[in-house]
């Protein structure tokens, strides 16, 4: 944990490593982080945060193993090697939701979605117009359908920024974002909601009043125009869009050598 603060900015890094550092930055010593399946970038981010700025970040691996000592990212983020040497096995039905629903703990979640729209509504259910006869059956909402409605702060990651995954209107809302935008979510009594969308091209947030998705920063080597072109709706784009801060040399070393030497994080990119 020694020299991460004084480490110079890296020049040799890949997009997955950049996305991991952006996600890691969202988690502090006061948070409890939790990952689901096939979550190589979030798991790498939690590990990175714990090795650098947030050594006391609590981590609930696979929503089941508390404070594991996983030595590296395994081939599954929902399987036993990940929760090696945990301090607690939290049983999901009886117990995980006690903590997750409570509101005081596990307030931030990294989540993925097949479709995300301009107001941060997510779809993991179906592609098509007929729910019962879909063009594509997606995996299903799992816990996301809960997370969207119970005040959580959601951090979407999307390794494949494109007009099919970032759409004007989702075919089906399987997790509530800002619904129709503006105060619609708030008017229903829902707190929290989508905070950030971290893609392979840019970092996006939501404009406070309209709740429309907004370009926060573009990754080095990408322009705001390229991001807009890869997006299925009009982004709120400030006059000047900064570059996403790149990782440090030490962060890249930690990811490559200690956290994910097998390169599992690369699997998320088509």
């Amino acid at each position, binding site marked *: 944990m020694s020299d991460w603060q004084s480490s110079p900015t890296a020049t040799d890094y890949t997009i997955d490593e950049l996305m991991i550092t952006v996600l890691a930055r969202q988690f502090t010593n006061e948070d409890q982080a939790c990952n689901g399946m096939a979550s190589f970038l979030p798991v790498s981010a939690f590990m990175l945060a714990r090795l650098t700025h947030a050594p006391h970040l609590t981590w609930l691996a696979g929503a*089941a193993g508390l404070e594991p000592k996983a030595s590296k990212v395994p081939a599954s983020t929902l399987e036993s090697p990940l929760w090696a040497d945990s301090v607690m096995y939290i049983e999901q039905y*009886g117990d995980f939701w006690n903590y997750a629903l409570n509101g005081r703990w596990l307030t931030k979640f990294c989540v993925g979605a097949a479709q995300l729209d301009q107001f941060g509504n997510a779809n993991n*259910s179906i592609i098509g117009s007929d729910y019962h006869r879909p063009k594509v059956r*997606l995996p299903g909402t799992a816990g996301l359908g809960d997370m969207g409605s119970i005040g959580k702060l959601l951090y979407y990651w999307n390794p494949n920024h494109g007009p099919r995954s970032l759409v004007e209107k989702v075919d089906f809302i399987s997790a509530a974002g800002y619904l129709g935008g503006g105060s619609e979510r708030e008017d229903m009594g829902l707190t929290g909601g989508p905070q950030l969308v971290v893609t392979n091209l840019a970092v996006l947030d939501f404009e406070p009043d309209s709740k429309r998705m907004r370009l926060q920063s573009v990754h080095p080597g990408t322009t705001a125009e390229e991001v807009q072109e890869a997006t299925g709706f009009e982004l709120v784009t400030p006059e000047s869009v900064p570059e996403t801060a790149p990782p440090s040399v030490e962060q890249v070393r930690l990811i490559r050598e200690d956290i994910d030497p097998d390169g599992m994080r690369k699997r998320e990119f088509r």
Partner: protein
Amino acid sequence: MTDKLATLEDAVGDLVSDGDVVALQNMATQAAPMALVRELIRQGKRDLGLVVLVGGMAVDWLAAAGTINRLIGAAVSMEQFGLCQQYRAAVERGDVTVEELSETALNARLGAGARNLPFLPTKGLIGTDLIDQSENLVLIDDPFGGRPVVACRALVPDVALVHAHRADREGNIQYEPTILWPDIGIMPKAAQRVIVTAEEIVDTSRIRENPDRTVLPGFIVDAVIEVPYGAHPTSFYPRYGYDTSFHMAWAKVARDAEAAKGFLDRVVREPDTQAEYLNAAGGAQMIAAIERWRTT
């Protein structure tokens, strides 16, 4: 206590009927009672409804074999091995209908079923399109003046299928220390009948050594069957991990109906015993591989 010891054939034959709602212990690649799943297919059961929290290969097989025509669950995926393609195709064709529930909604439906309540509420799902998709979810007022909640109607499966580390002949079911998936906590208690496969059947005196490890009492269990490696190819920690090669072999054929049928013929319909199945799945070499999970 009554002797619950049975065979796969008799348990599935006697306790599962065509059209039943079957609750299946499962996660993406974990802890599924796969020997029971294979027996459902071997016996040619039809029109089953399936309840899963997160379904994996079991769902794909049951869809491929035409065993199920509806699914109630939160997700279906084999994680790093991809979506369940046979299931997907069956849903897209309209052969399998889906009641998609969030985790808290499914837990609430099963919890109400177990506790003989008409419903349990959740605050999940509010604002989503999922509420309208199911006749078993409805917004109700908070009688104490707060915001509405979603009432989730009780779900009572006809039969629950479970795999465990140990059981005695009386049906007391134990787990070794490992992550407990939610299915074991509530599904069997909501179901009208319970079939359990176990890695080993032990004497009750062995069960009494660790009463804190018993997860289901004998009085709710209808049949127990000894099936070593009964969760293969899913993982069953701490005994064995998931079978990577087997999952990849299935994923490779699963987009093609004919190839999938050939795979199921070879590993499901032809082997008559668990030993024959394990041989068809790779035998001693496979077993050595899945027992090496700690080092992967």
